[in-house]
């Protein structure tokens, strides 16, 4: 699965992230915090600096931590931010013969963690 959703209790979060890193051993794994998320849909990630963008995109696996549940990203847009990205899946393309390929520029795996 290139995109996964997990529900993890706060006290097990560190273990969960460590397990992801060992599962994708040898690959770059980023962990980012989202501002808001829509369950099973995506998460709104603020980007305030170049390094925020590099962490989110220049990796092979991204783990997105989701704490603030919403029904749509409209509320997040009403808040203040410099730049942001609503992420719903891994980087992918179907530009060659409509074959779906993950990881064309950004992460091949996108793991959303809904923290309970």
């Amino acid at each position: 699965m290139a995109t996964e959703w997990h529900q993890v209790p706060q006290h097990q979060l560190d273990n969960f992230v460590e397990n992801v890193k060992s599962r994708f051993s040898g690959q770059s794994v980023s962990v980012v915090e989202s501002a808001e998320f829509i369950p099973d849909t995506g998460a709104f990630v603020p980007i305030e600096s170049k390094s925020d963008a590099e962490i989110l995109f220049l990796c092979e696996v991204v783990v997105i931590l989701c704490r603030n549940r919403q029904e749509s990203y409209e509320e997040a847009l009403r808040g203040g931010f410099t730049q942001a990205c609503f992420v719903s899946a891994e980087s992918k393309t179907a530009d060659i013969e409509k074959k779906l390929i993950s990881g064309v520029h950004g992460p091949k795996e996108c793991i959303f963690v809904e923290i309970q």
Partner: protein
Amino acid sequence: MSKFNENVFNATNLTVRKREKLFRERNLDSLRERAVAKRTTSLENAQSLWETTAEQFRANGITVFFADTVSSANRFISDNMGESKLIVKGKSLTTEEMELRQVLERAGREVVETDLGEWIIQQRNELPSHFTAPAIHLSAGDVAEMINHKFGENLPPEAHALTAFARRHLREKFKCADAGIIGANAICADPATVLAVSNEGNVSLSARLPEKLFIVTGWDRIYDSIEGMEGVQRLLSGSATAQEYTSYVDFFRKPLPHQQAFLVVLDNGRKALMASEFSEGARCIRCGACLNICPVYEEVGGHTFGKVYHGGIGALLTAFTGKGRDASSIASYCLRCKTCEPSCPMGIPIADLVAQLSESYPLPFYLSLPLKILGRNMGVVSGRGQQNSGSKSASESASGSGVCSDSNSNPAPASREAVFIGCAFRNPLMKKERKEIESALSRFFPNAEILDSGCCGMPHFYKGQLSAANDRLESIRKMFNPYDRIFLPCSSGFAYLREYLGDKIQLMSVAMAETAGKIDSDIPVFYHQPCHLKTGPGTSEKADLNQVIPFSEWENENRCCGSGGTYFLQHPRISRKILSRKETGMDGKFTIVTSCPSCLLQLRRVFGKARVVHSVSFMSESAHGKERRFFTAYQAAAGEEQKGT
């Protein structure tokens, strides 16, 4: 069928199926009405919205430049590029319209397209052939051949390996780029926010790693609120790639700390489009859903049927943002079949707009000639005059008296009905059908008067002869005025006149089905849906006829046959390709029933062994058959009425 054809055909058909599934499952159609209303309001208020938006962006540190023309936009970007040598660029139709990459390259800068499809066609020195899938016309073999030749690789024609190579190659470009250029799908006025969608992540990287960011957008991309922008984003993603949300929806309000950011807003004809009678076309969000379902596009692709902008909507956009002769050429490929219209998330009447456009950009002489020749034989083209003013009753017609009666001299029945035969049945090739229609009259429409006076004006309308079409419509309106119901055997004429004259216009076949008994057939009977019945009131024809005709299921019944009135004469090769998709998968005998005379003639070209019949003929023939008995409630009712009087 060439590999090119198959690439485009397979890709577009796959997207259409996925899109239909998504819209059904997520009920995205429910967003349309509100999104169209929001978009329309925003476009109407574009001037004031842009003023406040620009003010906010400037306060946020983004330089905003309004460019009236392509050259002023290109000059602004070039001037502000400074010493930038390497530029990474996201996919943007507006920048294609500006030929921005070429302008910057001529100035000695390296510009790298970063969307995979765009990068592939950049390497091949081609233009995009689709709004959202620029390399849709290429196979994996084509891409492998390009990479192996240009970069000295030995990659197999396999999408995974080719994509992995592009990832490695482009990753270095992102890291080293001095400037980034992206397009914007939408700009929200309050709070001022740029929205850009992508699946690959190249937009995010192109926008955020370099020190300079140029966001290029059109004057028509403005939205008044977050709600309006969000609704349109979901429709855009759903229509373009069959996703409710693309992998990434990027938002920009201010430059990042290391950045200098510019927003370039291009007019180049957009304001004129928005102020014109074609303003509905300005709602286009460039999703490409109309292309994926277009029977012409899926055969010829975007390099033939378009330039920067493709398909019927491309003709319109090109007329305002490009060259008139390109618009004329693109418009000539449009079938006016309306197949695209139900797919348009913005509810744009594309075929009607292309028809109107054809008035300003008429067909080249060699393409308009077939219509003139055909029209002369059928009484179509004259448009003015040459109309029989008389009518005759069904019984007179059936008896072959051919005497035109003065309709006013007959005692008026309680409900006056007429049958308008239409010009298609003047075609010598339709002689048999005409006789069968006349034969059906006495049986099914005994009290109806016959209006045998030429053309409804639809052919004029769709060829852009609007003045002639209006003249015809006016005289038709007068002619139809005394009647409560007018039945047409021709589905195209029905769909056209129904739009203007309302419920009194009815399909002859459907009226016959109301009163006919079940028809048994020893061989399968398929239904061919004429394209003009895909939208509007005629969409239920099959269901109505199915009450009496047991149609067999046919996967291709809704697929266009490529006739398009006179299209098969203007573009015979394309028309034939479209026709070849209408397969039944059956070798034996079968019947195809349709209500469109033009489709009927076209289908006969490919289904030589099959029986292709007009719906009225089929029911009329069956009514005469010994084993096929009709109980004509209509006649019974008419008999009762006579007894009563």
